[in-house]
């Protein structure tokens, strides 16, 4: 078990067992004494043995909404993160470069920009790529780290269009680099809300595509960074969608 905590910056990095122990303590459930000892030694607990309130674990045990982000690259690199959003704060558990998990806390209103930073949203070209659809069963091949599988699907898409921008974009997908990312936010469903929103995006140096389900197919539509940003700002539930107030407490 590893716990690294800097009290000055409140930067907390730890492994999954340590995080689970921290959440158990926050929830008032017994945790492994050895884990508790290590958390205490690292400074993540206060003098009374309680989880430091500034770590934001209260959002984790009583969230209004939970978000999961997964990013996969053309080379098969995987980055995953999870966030718990409550009116008092948003707490993120992100994979750090050294493989540990990093706990980050922000105001819930910073959730969209935190996700934008995580996925590297920024200016992109806007080539006149035509939308296309792909049978759902081929999507995993398109975003595979296996170049051969990817190339076969890209050839199918390229053969189906006469649009040079689309063909060039598909070439970029075959060759890489790119990131495919999924952000899903869930909350308890109510009459006015299904309790879930998600964004599926493909990001290449040639521009962004948004993916959406259409029956047995997935549609790929060009989208600007502005369009993605608008989706990020609307992904959290509003007051009317949750039983006891919105995720941010702002009435958004």
């Amino acid at each position, binding site marked *: 078990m590893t716990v690294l905590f800097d009290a000055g910056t409140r930067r907390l990095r730890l492994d999954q067992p340590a995080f689970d122990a921290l959440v158990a303590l926050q929830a008032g459930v017994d945790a492994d004494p050895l884990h508790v000892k290590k958390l205490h030694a690292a400074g993540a607990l206060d003098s009374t043995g309680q989880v430091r309130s500034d770590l934001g674990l209260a959002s984790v045990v009583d969230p209004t909404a939970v978000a999961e982000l997964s990013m996969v690259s053309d080379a098969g690199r995987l980055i995953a993160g999870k966030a718990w959003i409550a009116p008092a704060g948003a707490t993120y558990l992100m994979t750090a470069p050294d493989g540990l998990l990093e706990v980050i806390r922000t105001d819930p209103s910073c959730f*969209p*920009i935190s996700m*934008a930073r995580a996925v590297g949203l*920024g200016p992109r070209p*806007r080539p006149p790529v035509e939308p296309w659809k792909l049978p759902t069963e081929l999507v995993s091949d398109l975003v595979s780290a296996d170049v051969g599988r990817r190339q076969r699907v890209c050839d199918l898409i390229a053969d189906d269009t006469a649009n040079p921008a689309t063909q060039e974009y598909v070439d970029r997908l075959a060759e890489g680099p790119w990131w495919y990312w999924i952000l899903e936010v869930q909350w308890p469903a109510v009459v006015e809300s299904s309790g879930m929103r998600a964004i599926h995006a493909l990001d290449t140096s040639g521009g962004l595509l948004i993916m959406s389900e259409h029956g047995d197919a997935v549609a790929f539509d060009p989208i600007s960074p*502005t369009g993605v*940003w608008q989706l990020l700002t609307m992904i*959290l539930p509003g007051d009317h969608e949750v039983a006891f107030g919105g995720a941010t407490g*702002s009435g*958004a």
Partner: protein
Amino acid sequence: MTGQLLRYAHATPGFSIDLPSDWEMQVDPQPAVAIAVLEQRDDDAFRANLVVTTDDLPDGMDLTFWQAGIEERLPDALNDYYLLDMENVVLDQEPAHRRLAHHITGSGVAVTMQQWSTLRGRRGLSVTTTVDTLELASTAALFNRIVASLSVADDPPARNDEMR
């Protein structure tokens, strides 16, 4: 969010634009700021706003060079500045530049800023809108209508500030 817009004309630097009739307007509040228009709210939340600013630019400076310089300075001027998007657009039938960015205000509000900039000779004119990020969806259409209504004069009109 209001739907009624009224035409406003400003003599110097010479532009007209549609503005929400019930927003608070400040004319020439400080040097290089022609107007600042703020949403009226009943609560103490961040007030969406629109500001028109002007720059007198050196001879030979083009839109791209001007905007590159601004982009360099913004991270020092705004807390946690993050550029989300930028593109070349057409505004009032002339080339213009649009940027979309995020920053945190001095009072800790996460805001989204959009800025459209265009040149007339050595005169640069920018329209900047700022809104609480979580309210972006409710203001986007209004701000797009306002910016699309902008008309910049090649020569300043004879009369000063006028709302019709």
